[in-house]
């Protein structure tokens, strides 16, 4: 199908207001009948990327599954801020067991639905980057390998925010956390470490893997919707800025999520059965400084003597992603 490139200048960001779209193209979130699966009144911080991501993802999943969704949740911010009983934000059946077992619990729920003949019920597991890329990784890999009928959503804010911003295997190099302080000859998180879980998910050959960002909510919803049309193990990794942990202004959550994509640091792509099938092209390429400067966790790179070499290494990471995922081609 030929596509007519259209630019919208209202927001200066190429995003499109729902009002400009036909009703069937509008987001689930814009629809009056959205389920508010993660309802208002929860205790997330102002500007929380995870709350936003979860709200969009789960409502989109509910729409796609005709409201027949059960979710298992890892310990973490999302769990804590959503269920300070007797208040719960969850309008769906929801279980929290442990930090490291959300995917296994979801496997159990899916098995139960299968024996009960509830083919209509879909199962989601969700957790932060700590619960996914670190402590929950064994169970996650097991769930992938068995190709259990579970959609796992990782809300990645790049550190253990719930316990006070400690380094996880998703923390980027040079970032300040409470356990990677900006002191010594190599300030911030160590280089050459960390785990790229979307790529590891792909290596399992599971039917669907995608990365998404809370700056591109239409895209996020579309990926969730697509994942819900598929059976077997699926994985969506959503970058969710954390104002507290990143040392950023609450109103900059969306801007940061967008800059992460436009610098190339967080590539948006989809993969099926281990192969990349689509990636979102960068339309306004941005140098990494613009992204880093907005965050206090990188402030030590921009002191009286800017850490030019470190910034160049981060730029090289972005450039590598751009090459690897062909983020500038097909313009």
């Amino acid at each position: 199908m030929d596509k007519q490139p259209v630019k919208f200048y209202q927001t200066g960001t190429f995003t499109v207001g729902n009002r400009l779209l036909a009703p069937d193209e509008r987001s689930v979130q814009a629809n009056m009948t959205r389920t508010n699966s993660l309802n208002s009144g929860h205790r997330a911080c102002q500007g929380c990327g995870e709350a936003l991501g979860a709200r969009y993802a789960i409502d989109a999943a509910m729409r796609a599954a005709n409201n027949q969704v059960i979710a298992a949740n890892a310990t973490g911010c999302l769990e804590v801020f959503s269920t300070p009983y007797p208040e719960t934000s969850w309008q769906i059946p929801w279980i929290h067991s442990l930090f490291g077992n959300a995917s296994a619990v979801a496997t159990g729920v899916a098995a139960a639905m299968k024996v009960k003949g509830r083919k209509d019920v879909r199962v989601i597991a969700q957790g932060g980057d700590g619960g996914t890329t670190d402590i929950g990784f064994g169970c996650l890999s097991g769930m992938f390998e068995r190709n259990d009928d579970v959609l796992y959503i990782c809300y990645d804010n790049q550190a253990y925010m719930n316990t006070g911003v400690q380094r996880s295997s998703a923390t980027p190099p040079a970032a300040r956390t409470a356990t990677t302080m900006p002191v010594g000859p190599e300030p911030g998180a160590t280089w050459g470490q960390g785990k790229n879980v979307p790529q590891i998910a792909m290596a399992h050959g599971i039917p669907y893997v995608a990365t998404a960002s809370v700056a591109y909510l239409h895209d996020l919803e579309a990926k969730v919707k697509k994942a819900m049309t598929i059976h077997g193990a699926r994985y969506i990794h959503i970058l969710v800025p954390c104002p507290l942990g990143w040392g950023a202004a609450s109103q900059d959550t969306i801007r940061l999520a967008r800059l992460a994509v436009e610098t190339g640091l967080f590539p948006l792509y989809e993969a099926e059965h281990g192969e990349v099938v689509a990636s979102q092209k960068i339309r306004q390429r941005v140098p990494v400084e613009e992204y880093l400067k907005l965050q206090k966790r990188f402030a030590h790179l921009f002191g009286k003597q800017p850490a030019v070499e470190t910034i160049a290494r981060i730029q090289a990471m972005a450039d590598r992603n751009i090459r690897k995922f062909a983020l500038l081609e097909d313009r």
Partner: protein
Amino acid sequence: MLKQTEGSHAMAEAIALCRPEVICAYPITPQTHIVEGLGEIVKSGELDNCEFINVESEFAALSVAIGASAAGARTYTATASQGLLFMAEAVYNAAGLGLPIVMTIGNRAIGAPINIWNDHTDSMSMRDAGWIQIYAENNQEAVDLHIQAFRLAEELSMPVMVCVDGFILTHAYERIDVPDQKQVDAYIPPFEPRQVLDPREPVSIGAMVGPDAFMEVRYLAHHKQMRALELIPQLSAEFEQKFGRKAGDLIKAYRCEDAKTIVVALGSVMGTIKDVIDDMREQGESIGAVSICSFRPFPTRQLHDALCRAERIVVLEKALSLGIGGVVSHDLHMALAGTTVRAYTVVAGLGGRPITKTSLRTLFEKAQQDALEPLTFLDLNQNVVNREIDREKQQRRSGPTAENILRDLAAGNAR
């Protein structure tokens, strides 16, 4: 049906008759034969409507069980030893959430040093986790306790561990009566969960509970255990009525009438103990035994009543609480508070060390003369121990203890 079969296989058949809907399997000796048997029963189609899941760890095994049980499926898994420790976090979680999972423990020692043979250290390490713990004396009882366990778990909405001595029971071939499907169906009604994840009626399970309510939630879990003290004898009696044989119950007394000395133990060692008691009774000795089937909940009152008229008790423990001694003994001290009964703790059979009739006979005779130390280690090779203690005195870098001892034994230095 009576058959000559391996304990594990008979247990697998009995568990299948209980119609589990989700089974999680991860291999660890000596429980492997049970889940292997179940795997075959499910794969062949003999047990339909059951998901058999080969998971990647014990932590996942119990976590999958937690999800399945919370979603309303009758759920089973099995483990032992290191496996139980690896899933420890989920063991507490399953009980805290009140999920009626049934899990077999093929009782085995915990390392280091690594050891695959039988003792009770593994299940005893989880005694405070909130699971009901019942111990089987023989393979017939192991079969029967599993059937009672599903009923007990679901009636109370709490998980049950059926503890079965590794190898001694799991790998023993015996004559076992495996009931038929009709009998089991008449004993176990369909699973009606107290709480269930269902999109038709959404609930949140596993919320954060603060200081304002945590005590009450924990108290109610204790209260359930206390209710189990009433329910276990009832279910055992109903089982006897329906299946025509006795199994389970809280405790079982053996030749205790007017016994001055009573031996207390759990599990399969009761067989050997009973043989020794028969021999001693024949020679006019005043000795009996009490077997504890339900370790959690602990039948404090029943044990008090069974033991308070004795002059002394000998608690034979297949576990060692390092730094103090017995595990069961301490609970028994509470049961015997205010009495004049003398209690001797004997740690025996660790890591599969055989507990022989000869050793027990000598031990019980010593006990009758009150010539036992408060804490005794049955058949401990004191020479081996002394050599290692000396070595440690003589040199700073004395090397790894277990390997030193094995070298001494191989060289014949410590007879």
